[in-house]
């Protein structure tokens, strides 16, 4: 089992009355809520936490891309990844990822990922999300009706840019470049492992399955709600005649561990309620730009609703086929329901081991992404959470899936060939 420590980098000081006074954490969140001097401290704490996780023995540290977003301060995850590359030695750097359709030309992604791969000595995991509607269509103005096709084409272009030896012309539907020839080139051969984060679109996991990429289900709603999507993914794998290697799949889970269950509640209730209450407060106006959710996914959603209605069952929680903002409309926001619905896993090390084992077994997940800083969780408690997890939880889960080969993990340069950490440390930092 692989353990990936994932930071969203939330702005930690949204006001108490944020939900009442402000329509959305995303797209049109007001600039007056952002204090750059506070953000200076937050960014540096966040980077410390990621480096700390690497030191504690997590297999990878992860960052991702969001725009105009009060819970994700990484419009450019590549900036964060490059800083991490210089401050860690053996940990994989997982960028989940670059929303390909937003880069013009997309060869920018091929270049920057190649840079990170070179700087880190071949430790990059290259994530390619389609991107949420809030990020791609509203904040960045990309046409929702073209988004997915642009994404696929950009993927083809990046892959060719990484692998073709000679300068070539790319004559695409959306991108035309006479001279594609990126410098630098990635260390990993033929290219860094490709992981596809998604939030449940049928096309996304179907495509990841076909391409033999890792599919990462980035849900904030826990593993109980994820069963349908992952079931669909593994059925598709079976249909394609591929094995059930759990390393083909990743899942993101909010986790808070403490000495006892009570202590965990004491530590993590406020940050969890901050996360689900304020961070995921998205205006319903941004729920569904037409064309973003493909007709196949719409069809699957409507059919499952019709089926549930026919069987007299009410839909339990957000539909897996609904758009991310729609899901965020209907979620639980108080700790009791947050825990009961299984959004977060909090408790003693044994509680957490047990639930994560169930998660990994039922979803068949080998690449486990852990959100261990969430909401306004302090840096101190984040480190405590991280350390305790590494010491008490990780060793018990580590042996899971040992019989499978993880073919989707970075293959860095040999250690003796790699540059050493910066020798120069400013005096103040060393004290």
């Amino acid at each position, binding site marked *: 089992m692989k353990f990936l420590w994932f930071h969203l980098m939330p702005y930690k000081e949204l006001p108490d009355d944020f939900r009442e006074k402000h329509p959305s954490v995303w797209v049109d969140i007001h600039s007056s809520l952002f204090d750059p001097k506070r953000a200076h401290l937050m960014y540096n704490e966040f980077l410390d936490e990621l480096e700390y996780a690497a030191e504690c023995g997590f297999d990878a540290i992860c960052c991702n891309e969001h725009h105009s977003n009060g819970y994700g301060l990484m419009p450019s995850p590549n900036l964060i990844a490059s800083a991490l590359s210089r401050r860690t030695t053996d940990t994989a750097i997982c960028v989940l990822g670059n929303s390909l359709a937003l880069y013009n030309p997309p060869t920018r992604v091929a270049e920057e990922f190649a840079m990170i791969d070179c700087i880190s000595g071949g430790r990059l995991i290259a994530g390619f999300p389609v991107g949420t509607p809030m990020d791609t*269509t509203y904040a960045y103005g990309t046409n929702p009706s073209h988004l997915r096709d642009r994404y696929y084409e950009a993927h083809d272009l990046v892959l060719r840019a990484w692998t073709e030896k000679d300068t070539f012309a790319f004559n695409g539907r959306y991108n035309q470049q006479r001279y594609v020839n990126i410098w630098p080139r990635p260390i990993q051969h033929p290219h860094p492992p490709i992981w596809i984060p998604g939030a449940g679109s049928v096309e996304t996991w179907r495509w990841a399955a076909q391409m033999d990429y890792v599919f990462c289900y980035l849900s904030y709603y826990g593993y109980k709600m994820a069963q349908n999507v992952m079931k669909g993914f593994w059925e598709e794998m079976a249909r394609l005649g591929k094995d059930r290697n759990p390393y083909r799949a990743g899942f993101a889970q909010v986790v808070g561990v403490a000495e006892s269950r009570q202590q965990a509640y004491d530590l993590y209730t406020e940050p969890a309620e901050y996360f689900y209450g304020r961070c995921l407060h998205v205006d319903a106006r941004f729920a569904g730009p037409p064309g973003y959710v493909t007709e196949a996914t719409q069809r699957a959603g409507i059919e499952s609703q019709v089926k549930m209605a026919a069987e007299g069952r009410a839909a339990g929680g957000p539909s897996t086929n609904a758009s991310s903002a729609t899901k965020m409309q209907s979620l639980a926001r108080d700790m009791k329901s947050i825990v009961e619905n299984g959004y977060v896993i909090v408790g003693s090390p044994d509680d957490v081991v047990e639930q994560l084992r169930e998660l990994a077994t039922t979803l068949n997940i080998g690449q486990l992404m852990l959100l261990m800083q969430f909401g306004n969780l302090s840096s101190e408690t984040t480190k405590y959470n991280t350390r305790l997890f590494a010491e008490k939880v990780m060793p018990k889960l580590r042996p899971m899936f040992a019989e499978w080969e993880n073919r989707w993990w970075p293959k860095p340069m040999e250690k003796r060939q790699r540059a050493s950490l910066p020798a120069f440390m400013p005096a103040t930092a060393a004290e």
Partner: protein
Amino acid sequence: MSEPETSTVDLNGFATRVWRKGKGPKLGFLAGYGGLPRWVPFLDRLAEARTVIVPSLPGFPGGDRGHSVLDTHLDWVLAVRDAIDKSGLAGADLVGSSVGGSFAAEVAAIWPEKVKRLALIAPFGLFDERDPATDPWAQKQEDIPGLMTADPDAYRKLKAMPAGANSVEWPIEQTRANEAAARIFWPLGNTKLERRLPSITAPTLLLWGEKDRLIPRSYAGTIAKAMKARTETKIVTGAGHLAELDKPDEVAAAILEFMR
């Protein structure tokens, strides 16, 4: 209200619905935002005096997934020109509303011989930062009817699923219409139509709903000012963006009068 004759024409490999009803000289209609999932009273009023011909736009109800192969503005304009030619509307009078109004204006500007007289009901195609149009694609589902028509029920009635319709495909078809509009007009609705308006030679009637909450009425003035052909502007009292749904009798009467 009796149903029209229905036939199809091929647009880029997609069977596209054409409605036809009435007697007299031909009059074409290109539908507005959301398209026409059903025949409406406004078209009946027109059909009392004219042969009304209504080709669907690609991706709109009756237009299958025709939008999916249209990438550029040129692709769209050529597809609409083909729809007009293939439904026998070349050289006839043409009415367009909202999204369809923008295309009617494009065809009249680029191929002046194809349009005899033109009527535009609050067309898309412009954007003014000082008086911005509302974003139809960033709305709560329940707010859309009130944005499209002054009486929200007018739009709701247009979109209500008829008995016997496929309950899975019907809503998908309505979303597809919104996607098709987004495909050409995302994010601001601005296709720089203003630049081509001076090329229109057809006498043009500009109709604008008094209560249009989607596209500001000031755009009527901008359009009239940019045009060289004779224009006449009429504000439709009590109507919203899709004025032909709110006030079918008044809008049809104004068009028939102008094109008499």
